[in-house]
């Protein structure tokens, strides 16, 4: 087509596409974004398959509200409870952000379980998505640890005694239990260093772990594709390789003559 390029097209070309090309040439970022966003999805997906995104949204809410709460909270045994009262009762909209974080924690865990139930009932954990399931289970475990460590931070009677019970429950595990309990409590009993330790776990260690796991999880979802529902007539995701009559396992890892 020998169409003359309009002024407008030239403008778009120089203002948007050229910089994007420049970035993509150096980072492959545009290609990666396209790979991530523009995927084949089975025609008959349903609302049930949005539970994973919903869980991710709940997690993002937790991250943002948590970061903001950390700006006002003090993890010191003498002042922690006062800082919580300060956030809730005095700071503008503090009640809202703390409430979002507090209730959002439950929402996150509930959505995790619903998402897990959907994947289980749809059989979406089967080949080739086994590792997606396993990373998901690790996300669930890390999420529960986040709940456990976050519960202490309000530093009121409920938080304190629930955590005493939680620590001592860990303490009843055979062999390593008493050691684990003493590590978690920073001594034989909850003491002055416990709150800061749990704050660090809740703020730094566990979020780092869960964000890394979510990254792997989403990469796997993108790579392997969305599975179709069990009642679907069409196959989704990656094509299954051609069945080899020999049934040998060679080529599973190193490739035994297969050409892609």
């Amino acid at each position, binding site marked *: 087509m020998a169409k003359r390029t309009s002024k407008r097209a030239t403008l778009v070309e120089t203002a948007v596409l050229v910089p994007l090309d420049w970035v993509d040439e150096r980072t492959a970022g545009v290609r990666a974004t396209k790979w991530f966003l523009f995927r084949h999805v089975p025609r008959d997906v349903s609302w049930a398959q949005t539970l994973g995104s919903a869980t991710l949204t709940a997690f993002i809410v937790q991250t943002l509200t948590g970061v903001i709460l950390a700006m006002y909270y003090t993890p010191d*045994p*003498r002042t922690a409870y006062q800082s919580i009262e300060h956030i809730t009762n005095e700071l503008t909209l503090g009640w809202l952000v703390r409430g979002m974080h507090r209730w959002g924690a439950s929402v996150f865990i509930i959505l995790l379980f619903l998402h897990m139930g959907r994947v289980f009932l749809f059989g979406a954990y089967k080949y080739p998505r086994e590792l997606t399931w396993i990373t998901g289970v690790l996300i669930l475990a890390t999420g529960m640890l986040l709940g456990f460590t976050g519960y202490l931070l309000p530093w009121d009677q409920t938080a304190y*005694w629930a955590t*005493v*019970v939680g*620590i*001592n*429950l860990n*303490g*009843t595990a*055979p*062999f390593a*239990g*008493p*050691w684990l*309990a*003493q*590590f978690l*409590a*920073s*001594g*034989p*009993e*909850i*003491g*002055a*260093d*416990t*709150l800061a330790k749990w704050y660090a776990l809740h703020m730094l260690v566990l979020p780092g772990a869960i964000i890394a796991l979510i990254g792997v999880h989403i990469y796997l979802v993108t790579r392997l594709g969305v599975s179709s529902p069990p009642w679907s007539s069409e196959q989704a995701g990656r*094509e*299954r*390789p*051609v*069945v*080899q009559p*020999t*049934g*040998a*396992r*060679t*080529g*599973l890892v190193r*490739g*035994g*003559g*297969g*050409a*892609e």
Partner: protein
Amino acid sequence: MSEPGHDTPHVPGPSLWPIGFAIGVACLLLGLVLSWIVAAIGAVLAVGFGLLWARDVTRDVRGEVPEIEPETRAVADEAAAVAAPAAAAPPPTYSRSRFLEATTLGLGAAIGGVLTLPVLGFMVLPSFTNVEEDEIDLGPIENFDKGEYVIASYLALPERGEVSRRTAFVRNNGFAESGDPSFTILYSRCVHLGCPVQPNGPIDEAAKKEVDGVELRPVLAQSFGCPCHGGLYDAEGNRTAGPPVRSMDRYTFSIRNGRLILGELYAVGNVSGTGANATISKYPWSTPGTHVDGLEAWLYPIVPSQVTG
């Protein structure tokens, strides 16, 4: 897309034995709560069905010797590469690139270890080493009437504040047969999961005393109860009901210049007899919920207080 082998069915054939195995495990866990007979039946079921399951699953594999290609690479002797002088190693077996590979890995591991170990140590060790608490002076022993419990509440580490508040139940038993004064001093934390045990009786708030920062409140109680999960103890701290696994923890004590001094905590398996004539089976302190005597104590062979004192 023609990688071979992906789609060969490498799942084992269907087997019904896992159901029996699951029932056995469930039975075993139930038995831990109900009775050992149920647990034994569960164990037998679980082991039996587990073996049948294993036989089912491995049916295809058994009898076939898998063909394994022998490893032909020369095994790198890393320790020699890093530590021993080059002359000591036999020259022909070691190429330059292998040496560099081993050196990089070895040096990297050494640097990583030197950096990581102290940091990990700092993360873990203070929980086990910096745990000593001072002796607590509860004041003159005249404040403790004979045969009556007193709730003593004190700060174990006054400079760390309220977080170090502890509570003891102190009963003056008069004099033992040896002529020494006898006290029963129970630690208020439940040996189920560490909740604050309460004396079952009226507290005499009018007789409340404050002695050198220690709060003393007499209470008419012949038993103790835990609000969290309903553990009950008698006046000697023996379990009478509920989930606790041993008797209430006690303090060692000494009397100096007529004042009652609390020492360290210890765990109690059981107390027979009462008051000054009690026989106490004494063990190093351990986490609430852990057994100190009986068969289950084998699950906790080494507890931190045995190591750190």
